[in-house]
């Protein structure tokens, strides 16, 4: 299994790291996604699309375990992203790894899952 470090984007309280592991692409979020992070997040998620296509990934793992808060503007970026993925001819599966102790994740990711249940799964991790 190979691991390639693809991208690291950091803001003061929010960071995103992208890794490719085998045929999967892992996107790890940490910190808190406030409203000012939304434009950056939108760009990053477009980059994730391109990277997934380039690497022909069948699955994108989105790790939210260390994402403590996300503003509705950031959530909007995820809704658009899932919507876009869902509309693709051969959409990659998306697996969210959520933190079971953070209630907002349960609520928001639950809705994301309902948006495209064919491609989105949510895995709540007890830490």
């Amino acid at each position, binding site marked *: 299994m190979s691991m390639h470090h693809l991208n690291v984007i950091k803001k003061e*309280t929010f960071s995103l790291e992208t890794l490719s592991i085998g045929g999967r692409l892992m996107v790890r979020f940490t910190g*808190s996604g*406030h*409203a000012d992070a939304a434009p950056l997040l939108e760009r990053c998620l477009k980059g994730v699309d391109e990277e997934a296509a380039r690497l022909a990934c069948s699955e994108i793992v989105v790790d939210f375990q260390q994402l*403590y*808060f996300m*503003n*509705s*503007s950031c*959530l*909007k970026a995820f*809704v*658009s992203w899932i*919507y876009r993925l869902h509309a693709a001819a051969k959409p990659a599966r998306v697996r969210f790894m959520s933190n079971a102790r953070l*209630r907002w994740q349960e*609520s928001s990711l*639950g*809705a994301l899952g*309902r*948006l495209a249940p064919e491609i989105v799964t949510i895995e709540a991790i007890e830490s």
Partner: protein
Amino acid sequence: MRRRLQKRTSIALLLDYLGGDYQLGLLQAVEESAAEHDLNLLVAVGRALEAPNPVDAAQNEIYARVGSDSVDGVIAGSGCIGIHVNTDALTQFLGRFGSLAKCSISAELHGIPSLGVSNRRGMRAMVDHVIVTHGCRRIAYIRGPMGGDEAQARFEGYVDALASHGIALDPHLVEAGDFWIQSGAEATRRLLDRGEKFDALVVANDYMALGAIEVLHDRGVRIPQEVVVTGFDDVPSARIAYPSLSTVRQPLSRLGRLAVETILRQLDGQAVPDRVELDVDLVARQSCGCAYRARETASASPPPGPLRAARDEVDANAVALCDAMTHCVPIAPAALDGWADRMLEGLRRELAGSRGEFLIELEHVLDAAQPRADVIYQFNAVIGALRSHFRDIPLDPRHARTLDDLWHSAVLVVGAASNRSQMRTAFDSEHAQDVLRGSVERLATALTHPALTDSLREVLPAVSIRSAAISLYEDAARQQLRAFFAWADGKDQGFATNVFPSSRVAPDEFLQTERRWSYFLMPLTFGSEHLGLALFDMATHVSVPRMLREQIGAALKGAALHQAVVQQTALRQRAERDQLHKEMQIAQRIQTAILPIDISADGLELAALMLPAAEVGGDYYDVLPTERGCLIGIGDVTGHGLLAGLVMLMIQGIVAGMVAVDAEAAPSKLIAALNRALFENVRHRLNREEHATLLLVRYDRDGSLVFAGHHEEIILCRARTARCERIRTEGFWLAAAPDIGGLTTDSRARLESGDLIVLYTDGVVEAMSAHGEVFGVERLCAVIESHRMRPVKEICAAVAHAAREWSPPQADDISVLVGRYTPPLTPDSLRA
């Protein structure tokens, strides 16, 4: 009234270019003479007057900066700055310098002392030489610019010579040029292309002659075998051209020295002649064929031997010989002190039989003169003077030939030294330009004035400039200058004088120094735009200030453009902010104006408030009365601003419309229908990706609640337990998917007597403290529980206050709606 900034007398020299051989020859002579007389020298470098190119013309304003505030006298290099104008225009131009002492070099001007050479006689002598010595009859001529007096005088010399030899002037053999190389090349091409036949091409100056030689070479015309070529001026390039150029020598050293003396005499109140004309010398080299003849003669010389008679001649006439030799080198550098005596001593030893002594001494003297190519070249004249002297002495023919060989060898030694000097100069120039090229990026990327001064502090020492001053125009009329950068003796100078009249050219402190100074005064321009003035010392190669001036001008313009872009960006951003602020005001008005005024419902004491954030967050709440109670809606549109407010307005309108049609419709059906309309509007018509949370709660008088949608948790604070109960909403966002009917279901709850229902937006629970901690649902519940007995209006206020206190300043809209349920009166309740 003349104003003197310095105790030392200062003079100005006006030149059109810092690089031409003629200009550099004059500059060198004037600078040496100024140093000799302890005068400050300001060399104002502009362009030729009435230059057709507007960019060049812009640089001529530098001449207007020279005046009584900065100097006491002005020497005009009229032969270069006046090539496009006649004497009247030049006289008028120099008249602007008012009462300053003045001297014109070259052009003869009415009422202004002038120095010159006999252009007409010089050209006539050259054409005579071509006709008499080389037998030419069809003599083509390339003249200088029309309107220039110097060009006219030379042309008249050509016409005189032809007439004196009975040769008719053929207008087809006359072409016009402008004294620059390219025009000489073009004129020659025109002559050849027309098929004109000529055996000599006499050109009005050396530069044009060099261009002509280039074209003749290209066309396979042999010089001098097929065409004799001659020039005028004897610039250094004429000596190193191939073939070397036969020309008429202008005594630039003497002209420069005499010009300084003319100014000094005027300042001392002495009378000076209106016009002084110096003799010119014919210098016959390879391009007319003379040098080849001399070499043929020299190569036939026999081996040398003792020359007693010649040595006796040296002994007997040492003083006269010494005078004749020193006359040929009018301004010798200090390193050459006693050079003529040493050379004569070497000659004496040579003639006594010590072979090579004269040439060795000559080599030593020439080494001492390095790298002054102009001085080294003057030793050709020294050898010529010796040759002339001994030609008149009766000598054994074999000895005469030996002497001829000696003079020839001496000329070769001078030529080799001259070549070394030229190479050294070329190397110095190339090196300086290399250093400057390296600095281009530093100056070009200095986008602010502080960055530019930092770059100058690095660049100036690297190009050996020890003193420089840069000042920028303060006003559109260019009457005032502001000191921008001053660098003296290799150190940054901070002067008290910031703004000063532009006639002073530099801050007073910069020019008021004990030591003597010489500066190039150059305009800082960008295209035809005037930016300021620059002064550079003369310690470096002349190409350096020339290039530096251009680079600094470009860098200043770049910095100004950058600043303008920054300012425009700031203005645009301010305009955008203002626009956004207006939008926000409109959005706030929409948001608050649409809120329900009366939110009462039977059995449910209601209160609500909304605190919009500075940037409207798109919160929504509404209470729509129904027959059995009311429909409560609360939601939040993602994003901020006018668009969020607009989407909120759509939600309110659609919900209100649907309820008006079917007041008892299930919340899930209302949500699904609302979503379809909203999705179409937002995604397809507005082409946006906004979406919204929305919770619709149907309240019935009996306390039953039916709700659907996706929003924050519903909080029911139970009267029985005094504790909050949290109910999750399981629906889906609005406008995120075309059809959410399958994802939206109705859920139910029931209110008991005294229970509170609290609905809110994320502005409450996501309020973020300075430590990055959200307010959260737990804290919200604690506030509700502690205020549960208070009127609903106070509970609303307490929740909003707690959230705002948690997160100053408020980042998002805060909306809270609180209802307290009172069941209807029944016989049982009455009994209770």
